[in-house]
């Protein structure tokens, strides 16, 4: 698995495709990918940009531990976790989690597990830029949808 923090914009799908190209074809039957991108609205306010702070050293360590727990829980072949830091523009990718496995159940479950743990445990903090100034996001919302 490869885990990386990036200070600059990246194309999440090109990153996933590039990583997959290095894997042995025929072994993975399933890849599950989650991409989080910066929206231009949040909690009823217009958002014009974001600053993403992290704890150098602990953030990488925590992401390693999340991925290690996922590897213990499911049968995974490989994975890629990229997370932005610093100043982010509207529409840019904030995070990508990609998991390869022989079977889809493992890939889908592990991908979701990693993004949920990352959202609730990994030391990152978002400061939204609003028309009126900066606002620290206070809490991530639940990743489990209510059906309409």
């Amino acid at each position, binding site marked *: 698995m490869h885990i990386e923090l990036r200070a600059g914009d990246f194309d999440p799908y090109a990153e996933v495709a590039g990583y997959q190209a290095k894997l042995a074809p025929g072994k993975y039957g399933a890849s599950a990918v989650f991409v*989080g991108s910066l929206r231009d609205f949040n909690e009823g306010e217009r958002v014009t940009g974001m600053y*993403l*702070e*992290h*704890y150098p*050293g*602990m953030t990488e*360590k*925590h992401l390693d531990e999340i991925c290690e727990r996922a590897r213990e829980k499911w049968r995974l072949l490989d994975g890629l976790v990229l*997370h932005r830091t610093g100043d982010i523009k509207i529409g840019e990718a*904030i*995070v990508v989690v990609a998991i390869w496995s022989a079977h889809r159940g493992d890939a889908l479950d592990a991908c979701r597990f990693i*993004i949920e743990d*990352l*959202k*609730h*445990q*990994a*030391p*990152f*903090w*978002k*400061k939204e830029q609003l028309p009126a100034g900066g606002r*620290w*996001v*206070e*809490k*991530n919302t639940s990743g489990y949808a209510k059906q309409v």
Partner: protein
Amino acid sequence: MAIKVKFFASLRELTGKNEALIDYREGMTASQIWALVVDGMDMPADIMVAVNMEYVKGDPVAQDDDEVAFFPPVTGG
């Protein structure tokens, strides 16, 4: 004989501190370190504390050379 103290995000702005180095004294707990560094400012109820880059619960005693970090709930991803 020192403890490194770090603050992140809204707590960094609230305390006006990024990092502090304090003398180590035996038996100092996280909340005592907080009080010492931020001049008695109340500790937020939802604060997260890490010692040497691992989350800790309760009010652990710090060891010499520890790095103690205070931060608000995380909001990455």
